[in-house]
């Protein structure tokens, strides 16, 4: 709690690792964290959609966050983790390398995203947090799932 000097409402974030980078999402969006289980591939889906798994009877799509953020997706192992997140009315599993921490931050600690050329950075990164010499990107989840073509058309 010693970080809380700068005022503003404190909120909790879950940070996780994807490749060499660290990201975080609002803890309120996270429903549960579970180990990797093999997914059933979906035809006609983008490469970052790994498929679907059975989450206690519901069919849960798995998004490979590394591929979604534009990194090379690694071979999945039993050490990989699925973060089950609530996005609007839907639940989505996010495949990440490892969950690292729960952070308590205030709004003042979140720095605006610097102007960069990367489209994925623009689409997902909502801000940056500097913590103990690490840079953690706060990401928004609104666009992790492919937009529904039928709706868009």
């Amino acid at each position, binding site marked *: 709690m010693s970080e809380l000097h700068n005022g503003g409402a404190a909120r909790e974030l879950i940070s996780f690792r994807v490749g060499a980078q660290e990201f975080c999402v609002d803890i309120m969006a996270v429903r549960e964290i579970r180990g990797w289980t*093999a997914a059933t591939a979906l*035809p*006609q889906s983008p490469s970052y959609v790994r*498929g679907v798994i059975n989450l*206690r*009877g519901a*069919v849960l799509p798995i998004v490979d966050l590394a591929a979604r953020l534009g990194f090379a997706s690694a071979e999945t192992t039993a050490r990989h983790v699925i973060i089950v997140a609530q996005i609007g009315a*839907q639940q989505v599993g996010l495949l990440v390398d490892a969950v690292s921490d729960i952070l308590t931050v205030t709004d003042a600690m979140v720095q605006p995203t610097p102007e960069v050329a990367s489209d994925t950075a623009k689409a997902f990164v909502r801000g940056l947090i500097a913590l103990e010499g690490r840079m953690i990107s706060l990401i928004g989840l609104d666009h992790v799932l492919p937009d529904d073509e039928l709706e868009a058309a």
Partner: protein
Amino acid sequence: MDQLAAIRETFFQECEEQLAELESGLLAMEAGATDSETINAVFRAVHSIKGGAGAFGLDELVRFAHGFETVLDEVRAGRLEPTPDALKVLLRAADVLADLVCSARDGGGSVETETSAAELSQLLGGEAGDAAAEDDWGDFEFQPLGAGQTAAAPSAKAWRVTFRPRADLYAKANESALLLRELRRLGEIEVSLDASNLPSLAELDPEAAYLAWTVILTTEREQSAIVEVFDFVDGDCDLSIEEIAEDHAESPIAPTDVGDLDIAALIAKAQSAAPDPGPEAPPTRDAPAARAPEPMTHAAAGATIRVDLERVDRLIDLVGELVINQAMLSQRVLEAGIARASGVAVGLDELEQLTREIQDSVMAIRAQPVKSVFQRMPRLAREVAALTGKQVRLVTEGEATEVDKTVIERLTDPLTHMIRNAIDHGLESPERREAAGKPAEGVVRLSAAHRSGRIVIEVADDGAGINRERVKQIAAERGLIAADAVLSDEETDNLIFMAGFSTASEVSDISGRGVGMDVVRRSIQALGGRISIASRPGKGSTFTMSLPLTLAVLDGMVVTVAGQTLVAPLTAIVETLQPKAADVHSLGGDARVIAVRDSYVPLIDVGQALGYRAAPLDAACGVALLIESEGGARAALLADEIQGQRQVVIKSLEANYRQVPGVAAATILGDGRVALILDIDTIVAVSRGADLARSERRRATAAG
């Protein structure tokens, strides 16, 4: 405010049930039912709607329902003969009543009630008719007709009504004051309040009922009329109704004075209204006890509870889980190499049986008789018949056949369309029918039955049948078939299901709304059903729909394709084949056909169609599922191997993801993994050319 909205909602739900009851009762009477049970049910339906509408201040509805009720009361009392003509008027009045309820619920425009109201008054005839149409309907005008004017005054009796509401009465949104006001409509009343039970303010429970009333009522009406006032609060209050025999100060007639007149009135009544037990009733009776037979039949007819659909669906989901878990457990036990005869395996077998029974019972909760859809059709038939000038008798069969609620809901539109079609296009005009030696009145038969785990619904007319020459001509004009195509009769009949086949030259108000039979077929297919037609020239056409009983489970063929486990709906599969290399032929580029008993059908590699593999599977290494897709076209789907047949629980992909082309839904198998259920029609369409599928889909969404 919310609570009021909820009560309103309940009222309209009940209205719908009452309207259904009303219509089915009237139809039964039209078919010749004369028992008092049916007539009472009809009367009760209108009466309940009136009562509820009064509570919500729906004046127009109340006024019309009252006029309607007055006529039904005459029928009930045996004073009005329910002739076929009278029943037509009553049925029309039921339609108007339904319209009024709809417009009250949705706040729609005004409903034309005058014609029907006038018809109703005519049934009553003369003065009584005027009374029905009159706004102020609280007067003495609809006294029993048999009691002549001279007899009317002396027949006024004094009653002591003791009415002690219980808390339940208020909890159900009833209001004592309204009941007392209702009593006032029957005659002169003198009300005294008994507040002796009222506790001090500190002890007062705002939800409890403390007050009671004693009403001295002087009326010419029967005791039943008084009982009726309390119809809605029956069981929620202590009620006693007794005739005051001794000379009462307020009573205009002293019994000793008018003894002779009273007898005269009784005789007059007994003659005119023989079935009415009113006069013979014992002078003192406890209302609930005396009315016992009625509530009894009520309870027997519908010991039901209203349950939020969400709760049922949650239960169904959980049972789906249970089924999957049980399958997983079985698989684990099998894998662990436990002997079949061991206690564990036997216990597991029992568990499996129980699970299956629970599943069936839970599915049965959602099952409802198709009656609720079928009931809407007679009205439709009447309207379409009136518009087209045709004479139609709609016969319904198998109304008690049960099917999932969702299926029922989604059946309404296609059925409506098909009944319209059957009358508008199927039946000929009365003149043409007579010329063809058929009765002027056409018959449209709507039937439902269970057949091998599915529900089969038929719409049959005895009209002219499909004009095949005309159909072929239209199809050729629209470029759906080659002008010189040679088609079997069956193939020709099935052309009417093709998208783009709309008989534009016959557009009429009724059927020609730009929706053709292709839309009907699509909605039936969306329910996992199939539709077919059989037509005989001059004899009529029969549309047959076969639908799954539930949308929650599906009988599937589990297959392996490129390492993936997939489920193909069993209903689409005609047979399975072991293709021989000699039977498979290439046709142009990479298309293949397979010979099945001398006819060639397209061979589609499912793995390739879904993009699981780039190179097609060697047909000789796999198995082919011969399937019948839309419109009866056949194709063979190539899979690596068949795992077996299984009933699977359908899970939505769209809930957390989106629609995937070629995939109808998902399911969870015994190993806990997700398997995809194939959308066979899309796969076949995609194999014909992906663009076609896309444009088709777009057209479908645009049309929908």
